[in-house]
């Protein structure tokens, strides 16, 4: 087959004029960028909502059956976590207390009170897999201290510096150190403190006895090799129905699904993604269509030379293929910078690698080849005689 020498023709068609090549690739690259950005916005939203859950250091969790999103933290008694800890497969357990509505950081410079997400757990448990929290355990184990998230929105929270003192929900607290976690659509800043400090600041979490403390998430570390499904079934059978047993992955899925499908934000961003794809496809069609109509006389000549419609179509599709590759490369490059920029501007997790770069490459291919085939329709009807009309 003479497939080999069609490659250069398509390639030469595309690269014949440098300004033209630039315009075509720019068009396709913008289509790719648009898809990456819309997808990125949606994923930033969903990823940010699971930022805390993903860092829980355990394979399984206990939560209240009422809890449908961590943004509205409902609790269960500490007793259940202790009961779960009796299972031989469980290596260790850690109670995590979360407050999202009543935690207020008093900004020392302005005196303003800003709502923060406050997370508490026994420092020695390392319930959150964040290096700064593990390393500085001794610092924030002290009474009336807390750790502050450096990625909290600075325009609202001001700058956090170790050693500064202010108030959290009316109680004097020293910032022992900082860590990096990240914000989300529901919270603009995070504070971590020990369970003991947490009980002092939020006495409503404490119960009549230690076992009645109101735990938001019970983190279970499972011994290596244990069968998670069997353990989960065993825990569900053993514990009363006032707790739910989930694997960490199920917990992440539940949270993402809520924000993706039930809350309106997820749907709105999904519509953005779909529109981004449509506009991207229109741009690619435009680029290829313009190119073909410009070269109609050359194509007519080829046809007069005996090229079949199928061969011409293959030339156009190869050209579309090259355009897709070049456009994708350029779009990816632009997106890397844009993602970084949006990340710095919003503090939301804009992670390109989580945006299925391969899926977007596939979509770009579909988009370019599809619009190439559509644009090639005019070739079928091209009549060599038209050349001399």
């Amino acid at each position, binding site marked *: 087959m003479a497939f080999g020498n069609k490659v250069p023709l398509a390639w030469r068609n595309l690269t014949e004029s440098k300004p033209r090549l630039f*315009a075509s690739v*720019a*068009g396709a690259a*913008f*289509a790719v*960028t*648009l898809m990456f*950005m*819309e997808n990125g*916005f949606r994923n*930033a*939203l969903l990823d*940010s909502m699971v930022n805390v859950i993903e860092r829980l250091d355990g394979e399984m969790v206990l939560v209240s*059956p*009422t809890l*449908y999103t961590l943004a*509205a933290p*409902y609790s269960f008694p500490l007793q259940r976590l202790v009961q779960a800890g009796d299972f031989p497969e469980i290596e260790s357990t850690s109670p995590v207390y979360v407050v999202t*509505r009543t935690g*207020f950081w008093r900004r020392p410079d302005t005196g303003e*009170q*800003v*709502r923060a997400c406050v997370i508490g757990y026994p420092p020695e448990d390392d319930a959150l897999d964040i290096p700064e929290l593990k390393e500085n355990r001794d610092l924030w184990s002290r009474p009336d201290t807390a750790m502050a998230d450096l990625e909290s*929105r600075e*325009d609202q929270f001001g700058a956090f510096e170790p050693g500064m003192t202010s108030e959290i929900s009316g109680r004097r607290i020293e910032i022992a150190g900082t860590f990096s976690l990240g*914000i*989300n*659509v529901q919270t*603009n800043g995070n504070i971590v403190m020990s369970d003991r400090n947490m009980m002092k600041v939020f006495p409503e979490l404490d119960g009549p006895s230690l076992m009645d403390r109101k735990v938001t998430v019970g983190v279970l570390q499972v011994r290596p090799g244990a069968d998670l499904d069997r353990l989960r079934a065993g825990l569900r059978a053993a514990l009363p*129905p006032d707790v*739910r047993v989930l694997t960490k992955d199920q917990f992440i899925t*539940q949270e993402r*699904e809520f924000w993706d*499908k*039930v*809350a*309106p*934000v*997820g*749907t*709105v961003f*999904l*519509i*953005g993604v779909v*529109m981004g794809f449509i*506009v991207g496809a*229109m*741009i690619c*069609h*435009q*680029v290829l*269509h*313009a190119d073909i*109509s*410009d070269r109609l006389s050359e194509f007519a000549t080829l046809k007069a030379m005996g090229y079949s419609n199928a061969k011409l179509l293959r030339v156009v599709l190869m050209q579309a293929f090259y355009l897709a590759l070049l456009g994708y490369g350029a779009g990816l490059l632009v997106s890397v910078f*844009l993602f970084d920029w*949006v990340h710095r*501007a*919003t503090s*939301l997790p804009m992670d390109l690698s989580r945006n299925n770069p391969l899926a977007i490459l596939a979509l770009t291919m579909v988009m370019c080849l599809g619009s190439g085939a559509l644009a090639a329709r005019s070739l079928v009807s091209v009549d060599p005689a038209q050349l001399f009309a």
Partner: protein
Amino acid sequence: MGFPIRRPRFPPLAWRNVIHGGRRSLAALSGAAFALTMVLLQLGFLEAVEITAVNNFDQLDFDVILLSSRYEQFYAPGFLPMERLRQAAGLDSVLATTPLYASFGLWRCPPYPLDSAAGDGETESQTGALGRWLAGSRLRRPLQRRELFVLGFDLDNSPFRSPLREIIDEYRPQLRLTDRVLLNSLSHPDFGWDLRHRFHDWELGKTAVEVVGGFPMMRGFAADSTVICSDENFVKLCEYGSRETINFGLLKVLPDAVGATIARLKSMLPPDVLVYSRAGILKRESDHWVNQTSTGKLFAFGVLVAVVVAAVVVHQVLSNDVREHLPEYATLKAMGYSTARLTGVVVAQSLIYMVLSFAASVVIAAVVYRITAALAGVPMRMTAENLARTLLLAVVVGAATGLLTAYKLRYAEPADLF
């Protein structure tokens, strides 16, 4: 030099260029139209954030509002003592005061079908946005508890504006009874408004309640549903302990004394309250949602990306078109058309394209707006400002591209033609 004074032919050349383009013009038009639709859509998203931000205050009748110093936004208002409202009522310029109580409460959402067993959420549906919308309130779901926003108010001194005011008048006798509430008829389907005639085991918090009727209130990005009830019921259902802790203090003030009253209140009241005029709180609230939340910021970036992409696409489309017509333009030049006159034709043609694309994009966007509103349940409104912004973008990019390509025409030598 200037343009030679000659009676313009009708229809003008630019228009005939567009019409003559046929399919090719149509392709150019649709490319630009979709790019502009993207801009309109992103602006619509941002607008929806603003609409939902101020909608709650739009339902309330007040000139001046007292808020907690911990006030963040309508759904996280913080608390203030009722005493502040009494202090404010002492001012001569204050005509009337009324408190508003607001808190999230846990609502028992009916399962669907109603007789399905009370699952523990394991059977949660995997349906996507479209499926959810198609199924509406008939989406299979287990019995679950979800939070909604509860508003409590003084029945004899209702803080609401029309139409809520009239609806409350109608239900007042029933709302006086214990544990009776009105449910938002525009709630997310999961909250069970459509099942109200067949489901009676409602619970709010730890108490069984009865839904005596409904009221329409837009839902936003923060709450999927709302319930309103009397202050007495509110205090009990939301475990406030007493009516002495309130969330909003609403004041009616003499029409010309708003500024003076705010100044007096600020100097008179302790720093645990914030005092805002109606315009002031609306501004703060939309600033919060648009500029201080991640949602608003993401939508703002969406607008930016859409504008850049649209500008590039429109430029691409127009310059392609001019390039295709280059031989014709060169011919015109050979016939003695001045560069200025050709520029006029090219720019006019670009503008015609843009206006037509804009018109098409408005139609497409109207459809996409409706889809978004139906799927996501957020208000999508095409405002005159957003239409004007998009048209301005189209015209500016159109004119700029026209001029830029016309500049290239200067070098279109008639001799090149051959």
